[in-house]
């Protein structure tokens, strides 16, 4: 008798997670959406959205590469689109279902990485820079300032080979997308020289440690930095003088998705000016959506952290997809830095 109850309990438990509404599975960066974005979509379209978050492109790619991850919509950074397409992971977008594409900023209508917007819809863009506590004197303004011994133990760098090597390359006056082995080796030496100062390699997780004062300076994405600044006004953000990378995260539909139509609806929903503007307000991102931008209050539109002025923006560089040989060398260098 007990057994029967137990089994019934089990099947009841399993049954509870069933929902008859159509489903859409969305996998996005953490803190990259407004609290009401998904519930409103669910209500309007009568669907159920499974939403989960990741902290790095690699975490998402590790799942997507299985080809049966279960996710429909993910948000890779622009220079990951090419490798994902090469691996047959992406579904081609149907522009008939994406009526909101006209809302995009002209800069993102035909970006270099995807001129026809055939594979991904630009979602939000941001840059990597330095966030620091105002008590740090002099305030860091260049990547080279992150090699200051005074920051020992209170400095974090991103847990991302591209960004860490990129900062080193920029410090040396090279391109973010450098492929030359000598340049990369020189960058590696810089990273290893900096390592004794580095407290940890952390991504968005560093936000709360900045707010609590554990960390005084960090290499961080502008979006996450602005979230930290909102919580702790004594923090500030700098776009490094040597130059900095600009990233655009794009909404893509995985080829494995069996809900392509609904996935397009979701992408189109994210293109709506009011939806996008709400996300910007809630999560402090820079939207790729021109129509949404005009809906934002003046204070946000002129926020120099999210929307750097033209002269600062000009120092930015969009990292390119790297040739496989370079990627291998960079992977190796990253392992060397980590184990140094």
């Amino acid at each position: 008798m007990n057994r029967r109850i137990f089994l019934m309990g089990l099947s009841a438990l399993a049954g509870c997670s069933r929902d008859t509404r159509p489903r859409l599975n969305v996998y996005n960066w953490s803190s990259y959406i407004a609290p009401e974005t998904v519930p409103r979509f669910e209500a309007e379209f009568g669907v159920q959205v499974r939403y989960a978050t990741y902290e790095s492109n690699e975490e998402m790619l590790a799942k997507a590469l299985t080809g049966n991850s279960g996710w429909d919509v993910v948000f890779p950074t622009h220079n990951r689109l090419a490798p994902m397409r090469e691996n047959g992971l992406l579904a081609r977008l149907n522009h008939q279902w994406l009526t909101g594409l006209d809302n995009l900023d002209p800069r993102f209508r035909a970006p270099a990485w995807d001129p026809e917007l055939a594979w991904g819809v630009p979602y939000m863009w941001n840059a990597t820079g330095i966030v620091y506590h105002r008590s740090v004197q002099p305030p860091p303004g260049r990547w080279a300032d992150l090699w200051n011994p005074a920051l020992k133990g209170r400095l974090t760098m991103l847990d991302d080979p591209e960004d860490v090597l990129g900062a080193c390359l920029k410090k040396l006056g090279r391109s973010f997308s450098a492929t030359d082995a000598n340049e990369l080796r020189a960058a590696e030496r810089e990273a290893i020289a900096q390592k004794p100062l580095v407290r940890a390699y952390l991504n968005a997780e560093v936000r709360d440690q900045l707010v609590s004062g554990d960390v005084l300076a960090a290499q961080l994405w502008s979006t996450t930095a602005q979230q930290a600044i909102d919580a702790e006004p004594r923090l500030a953000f700098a776009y490094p003088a040597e130059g900095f990378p600009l990233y655009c995260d794009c909404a893509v539909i995985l080829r494995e998705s069996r809900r392509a139509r609904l996935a397009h609806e979701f992408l189109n929903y994210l293109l709506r000016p009011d939806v996008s503007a709400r996300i910007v307000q809630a999560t402090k991102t820079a939207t790729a959506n021109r129509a949404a931008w005009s809906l934002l209050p003046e204070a946000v539109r002129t926020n120099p952290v999210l929307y750097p002025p033209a002269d600062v923006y000009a120092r930015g560089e969009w990292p390119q997809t790297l040739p496989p040989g370079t990627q291998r060398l960079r992977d190796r260098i990253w392992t060397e830095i980590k184990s140094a």
Partner: protein
Amino acid sequence: MKRWLAVYAAAFFAFLHLPLLTLAAFSFNSSRFTVWERFSLDWYRAAFRDPQIMGGVWNSVIIALWATAISTVIGTGCAYGLWKRGSRLLTGGLYLSLVTPEIVTGISLLALFQWMFRWLHWQLGLYTVVLAHVAFSIPFVVIVVSARLRTIGPTLEEAAMDLGANEWQAFRRVTLPSLMPGIIAAALLALTVSFDDYVITSMVAGVDSETLPMVIYAMARRGASPAINAISAMVTVGFGALILISERMRER
């Protein structure tokens, strides 16, 4: 000598327990910093209101119950079969699976699933996580049930068969009832290892399978919300209770 040993033992137990006790104590602190302000249940409220935490708890419970049910049945059968006549290959496999580094188990299962998906139209998710948990909790069940079988001994079952019971009847009517405490203890153990696992789960998780340990891990990396202290305290108390019950069962 004796006194020194006792002093040392006190320090030793303090080292084992104080970290968790202070963590639990500070989960009742109203301040978000590590300075005691006053008693408050705010962080518990925050934890219960957090949809991600509650979703994680729910997924963890479903996964742990399924994995426990399946692995207890398989593991008990295995222990019973091995008790009748050993198999070096199977025993070796059990030991080896027990000592395989978690990360290796995780990536090999991920590789397996990816390979299987070429033919099966499955997806990473609840099923794959349950399968993975079954995979690593079976050896625990076998060990606990085997220990119980050794204490029971074969005499009762032999007597039953002498009196005319067939193999199945002897198992069902004689061995199984006296084995019950061991099985329950094994199930509770499987439940805790399943509920606790992070490394393997994170490798094979997909949609609908963000478990509580994955949520705790993400929060620990971020590092500041005291809601995680509250969750940790509750998890610790829950686990402690399960294990105490399990110990009682084993002693019976």
